[in-house]
C-alpha cells in the first residue's frame, strides 16, 4: 500500500505545544517524515500498519512462491531441506503475525474511531507504541535469515523439535523473542481498542448501534487480550529452555511434550478467529452498502460473532486429534468444533439474505465480499469434515488441511481485506482505485487461489502429507491426474495469484498518480466514517455526531415512505458536510505527537537481541525502555491548555479527552 501524501489538514485552532514534563522537548512538526514517525494520529498509524503489513505480505508471498516452485515437480531442487523448513515456518509466521493481524489492526485503527464518532483512540501514544513494536518485532523475526538461518520448526513449533539440540541455530530464539515483541504490540493494541470502543462512542452510539466492523474488531480485541498471554507463557518456557537451560520440554527429565501443544493451541485456535473476524466485519459493511439494504439480522451477526469468540476457547484440541488424547477428550472437542460451525453458518446465511431483495451494485469491493461468502464456505465445510475426529486422523497434516485453512484464510481473511481496500481507499486517500483493474485483480486472485488451493484437497485426500521438502513419485499414484499433475496446477495457480496481487499494487500506483479526487460519498454509504471529508481531517469530525440509528449516515440521507416503504433521498452527503462545517467546534484539542512510543518500542528488540548474543546489550535495551517509560509517564498525552492560542481560562474549552496512557 503506497503512502500517498495528502494535503496538510486545516485545524480550527493552532496547537503549538511549548512546555514539556518529559526529558526531551515534544516534537511539534506537522510535516515531513517527522509527522509520521512521532505521530499519535490513529489514521496515520492505520496507514502505517497497512503499508508495513503489505510489505510483509509480499515477503510472505515470495516465500510461498518459493515453496510452490520447490513442490512443482517431484524431488524439487530449488530449496534444500533446511531452507525449505525455514521457508514454510516463516511463510506461516509472516502471514499470520506480520500480515493478517497487523493489516486488521490497521483497518481497526483507522476506522473504529471514525465509525463510533470519536476523534482518536483512548490511548494515542500506546497506539503508536503498538505499531512500532510490531514493526521492530517483524524486523527482528526476519533478521534471523541473515544471522545463521530462520526458525525451522514450523509456526506451531512443537516441542521437543524446537529444543536446542534439534534446532541448533538461533532461528527459534529469534522467532520466540520476535513473537514476544509482536505479542506486546497486539496486547497494547487490544487494550487500546477495547477502551476506545467502550468509552469513546459518540452520543447515542449504543453498543447495538455500532457498525458490525467495530463489533467484530471488539470481539477480536477481547480474543487477543486473553489469547496473547497464553502464547507469551509458552514462548517464555521455550526461551528459558533454549537460553537458560530450563527443562520444560526435556523428555529425559520427565517433561510432557503435549504441554506445548496445549498452550500453543489454546492461543492458536482463538488466533484463527482473530484472523478471520475482522474480514467478516469488513464484508458485513460492504454487503449492505452495495445491496442498499441493512445487514440482515444485525443482532444475530453480532451475537454469532460473540459466540464464535466464546466457543473459540473450547475447541483448541481439535488440532490434536492425532496426538494421543483419550477418546473422551476427542469426543468432547469434536462436539464443540461442530458447535462452532453453527454461528459461522449463521453469518453465511445472513450475508446471503442481506443481498436478497437488494439492489446489488457489483463494484470490486462487492465482488471480493461475495467471493468471501462462497470461498469461505468451502473452507468452513472442509472444516466440518475434520470436526469428525476419526476422519480428521486421515486428513490432518496432509494437504487437505493446507487446502482447508487457505480457503479460510485466503478465501476468507484476505479476500475480506481486499474488499476493504477497494471500499475504503477513497476514504483513506481521497482517490478511487481503478475499478476495471480491480476487476482483473479480483478475477485473477479468485482463479489463482482456486487453482492453488483447490487441488490441495485432492492431493491431501490422496495422501500427500504437509511440510515435506520433497514429494516422491513412489507415492504419486498412476495416470495423468496424479500428484505430479495437481502439484503442477497448484504451482501455476500460485503464480496467477501473485499476478493478481501485483495488479493491485499497480492499481495503487496508478491511482496515486491520477489527479482525480474521489467524490465525498462514492458508494452511497451507511456508517459514520463516511460522514466526513476524504481523507478525514486530523480531528475526524468538525462536530461530533449524535447517533439515532444503526447506519445513521444513511438515515440522515434517506427517509422512508410510511406506506410504500420506499426510501427517498432527502439530503446529500455534501449538504450534511456543509452543515457540519457551519457548526464546526471552535477549539479541538488533539493529542500531541511524542518521541516516546518509538523510543520505548526500539528498546524491546535491543533487549531480545542481547538475550541471544550478549546480556550486556540487553542491559542497554533495558535502560532505553526505562528511560522512555519515564519520559512517557512525565509527559501528558495532550499538550496543556496554556499551549493554545486564544486561550481564555475557565471558558470551558471543548476538547477531546486527555489521557495518560
Amino acid at each position, binding site marked *: 500500500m503506497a503512502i500517498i501524501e495528502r494535503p496538510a489538514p486545516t485545524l480550527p485552532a493552532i496547537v503549538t505545544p511549548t512546555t514539556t*514534563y518529559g526529558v526531551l522537548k515534544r516534537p511539534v512538526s506537522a510535516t515531513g517524515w517527522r509527522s509520521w514517525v512521532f505521530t499519535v494520529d490513529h489514521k496515520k498509524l492505520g496507514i502505517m500498519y497497512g503499508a508495513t503489513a503489505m510489505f510483509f505480505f509480499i515477503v510472505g508471498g515470495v516465500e510461498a512462491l518459493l515453496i510452490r516452485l520447490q513442490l512443482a515437480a517431484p524431488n524439487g531442487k530449488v530449496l534444500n531441506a533446511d531452507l525449505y523448513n525455514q521457508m514454510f515456518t516463516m511463510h506461516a509466521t509472516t502471514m499470520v503475525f506480520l500480515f493478517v493481524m497487523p493489516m486488521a489492526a490497521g483497518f481497526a485503527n483507522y476506522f473504529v474511531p471514525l465509525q463510533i464518532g470519536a476523534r482518536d483512540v*483512548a*490511548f494515542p501514544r500506546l497506539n503508536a507504541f503498538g505499531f512500532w513494536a510490531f514493526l521492530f518485532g517483524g524486523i527482528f523475526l526476519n533478521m534471523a535469515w541473515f544471522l545463521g538461518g530462520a526458525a525451522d520448526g514450523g509456526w506451531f513449533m512443537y516441542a521437543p523439535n524446537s529444543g536446542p539440540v534439534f534446532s541448533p541455530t538461533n532461528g527459534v530464539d529469534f522467532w520466540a523473542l520476535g513473537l514476544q515483541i509482536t505479542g506486546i504490540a497486539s*496486547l497494547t493494541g*487490544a*487494550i*487500546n481498542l*477495547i*477502551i476506545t470502543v*467502550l*468509552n*469513546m*462512542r*459518540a*452520543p447515542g*452510539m449504543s453498543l447495538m448501534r455500532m457498525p458490525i466492523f467495530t463489533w467484530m474488531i471488539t470481539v477480536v480485541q477481547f480474543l487477543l*487480550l*486473553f*489469547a*496473547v*498471554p*497464553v502464547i*507469551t*507463557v*509458552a514462548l*517464555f*518456557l521455550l526461551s*528459558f*529452555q533454549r537460553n*537458560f*537451560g*530450563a*527443562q*520444560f520440554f*526435556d523428555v*529425559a*527429565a*520427565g*517433561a*510432557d511434550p503435549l*504441554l506445548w501443544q496445549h*498452550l500453543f493451541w489454546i492461543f492458536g485456535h482463538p488466533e484463527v478467529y482473530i484472523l478471520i473476524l475482522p474480514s467478516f466485519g469488513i464484508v458485513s459493511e460492504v454487503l449492505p452498502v452495495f445491496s442498499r439494504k441493512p445487514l440482515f439480522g444485525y443482532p444475530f451477526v453480532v451475537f454469532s460473532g460473540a459466540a464464535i469468540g466464546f466457543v473459540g476457547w473450547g475447541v483448541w484440541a481439535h488440532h490434536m486429534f492425532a496426538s494421543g488424547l483419550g477418546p473422551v477428550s476427542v469426543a468432547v472437542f469434536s462436539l464443540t468444533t461442530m458447535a462452532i460451525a453453527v454461528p459461522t453458518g449463521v453469518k453465511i446465511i445472513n450475508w446471503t439474505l442481506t443481498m436478497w431483495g437488494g439492489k446489488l451494485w457489483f463494484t470490486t469491493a462487492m465482488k471480493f465480499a461475495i467471493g468471501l461468502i462462497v470461498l469461505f464456505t468451502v473452507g468452513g465445510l472442509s472444516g466440518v469434515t475434520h470436526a469428525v475426529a476419526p476422519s480428521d486422523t486421515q486428513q490432518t497434516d496432509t494437504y487437505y488441511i493446507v487446502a482447508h485453512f487457505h480457503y479460510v484464510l485466503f478465501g476468507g481473511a484476505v479476500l475480506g481485506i481486499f474488499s476493504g481496500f477497494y471500499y475504503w481507499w477513497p476514504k483513506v486517500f481521497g482517490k478511487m482505485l481503478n475499478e476495471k483493474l480491480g476487476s482483473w485483480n479480483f478475477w485473477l486472485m479468485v482463479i489463482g487461489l482456486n487453482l492453488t488451493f483447490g487441488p490441495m484437497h485432492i492431493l491431501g485426500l490422496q495422501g500427500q502429507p504437509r511440510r515435506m521438502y520433497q514429494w516422491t513419485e513412489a507415492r504419486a499414484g498412476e495416470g495423468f491426474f496424479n500428484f505430479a499433475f495437481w502439484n503442477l496446477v497448484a504451482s501455476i495457480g500460485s503464480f496467477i495469484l501473485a499476478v493478481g496481487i501485483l495488479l493491485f499494487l499497480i492499481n495503487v500506483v496508478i491511482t496515486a498518480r491520477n489527479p482525480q479526487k474521489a467524490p465525498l460519498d462514492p458508494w452511497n454509504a451507511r456508517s459514520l466514517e463516511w460522514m466526513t471529508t476524504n481523507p478525514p481531517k486530523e480531528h475526524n469530525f468538525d462536530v*461530533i455526531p*449524535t447517533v439515532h440509528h444503526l447506519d445513521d449516515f444513511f438515515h440522515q440521507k434517506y427517509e422512508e415512505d410510511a406506506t410504500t416503504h420506499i426510501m427517498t433521498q432527502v439530503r446529500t452527503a455534501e449538504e450534511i458536510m456543509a452543515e457540519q462545517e457551519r457548526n464546526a*467546534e471552535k477549539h479541538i484539542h488533539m493529542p500531541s505527537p511524542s518521541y516516546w512510543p518509538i523510543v520505548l518500542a526500539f528498546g524491546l528488540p535491543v533487549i531480545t537481541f542481547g538475550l541471544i548474543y550478549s546480556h550486556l546489550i540487553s542491559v542497554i535495551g533495558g535502560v532505553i525502555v526505562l528511560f522512555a517509560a*519515564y519520559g512517557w*509517564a*512525565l*509527559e*501528558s*498525552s495532550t499538550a496543556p491548555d496554556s499551549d493554545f492560542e486564544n486561550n481564555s481560562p475557565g471558558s*470551558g474549552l*471543548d*476538547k*477531546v*479527552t*486527555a*489521557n*495518560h*496512557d
Partner: protein
Amino acid sequence: MTDVIHGHASSTGISNVKLGMWAFLGSECLLFGGLISTYMLYRGRVTGGPRPSQIFDIPFTSVSSFVLLMSSLTMVLAVSAAHKDDDRKINLWLTVTALLGATFVGGQVYEFTAFYKEGLGFSTSLFGSSFYTLTGFHGVHVTVGIIMLMSLVGILKRSSVPGKKAEVVEMIGLYWHFVDIVWIIIFTLVYLIPV
C-alpha cells in the same frame, strides 16, 4: 453537546486509564493461569535435586506473604488519601507500601538463595524450572509495582503528575492488589498443598 465531548467524558463512566488497567489485569490472569498450570503439571516431577517438601520453609514464606498482604492495606490508605488530596499521606502510604513490597521481594531473594544452596537450581528438575519461573514472574511483577510506587512518590514531590492524581494512584493500586491476590493463589497452590 459540550458535556459529551468535554474533558473526561466516557461512555461507561469509568475513566480510560482505570478501564485500561482492568483490561490489562484480565490479560494477566491468563498469563499467571498458564504459569500456574505449568507448575501444577510439573511440581511432582523431580528426577534430581530436592523435592518441594524437602526445601519449603512454610513459616518463613507465611510471614513474607503476610507482609505482602499488609501492603494491600497500606495501598488502600494511599488511595483514600489521594481521594482526599492529602499529599503528605499519599506519600507516606505509597512509601510504606513500597517498603513492604521490597521486604517481600527481599524475602524471595533470600528464599531463592537458600533453595539454590540446598541443590535446587533452575535446570535441576522440572520442579525447579517451573517453580523459579512462576515465583520469579510474580517477583518481577512486585518489583515493577515497587518501581511504579517509588516513581509516583518522586513525581508527586515535583507535583507534576500529568492528569488526575487520584486516578493514577488508584490505577497503580489496582495493579498492586492484583499482584497480591495472585500471590495468595500461588502461596496456596505452591506451598500449602502437598505434592
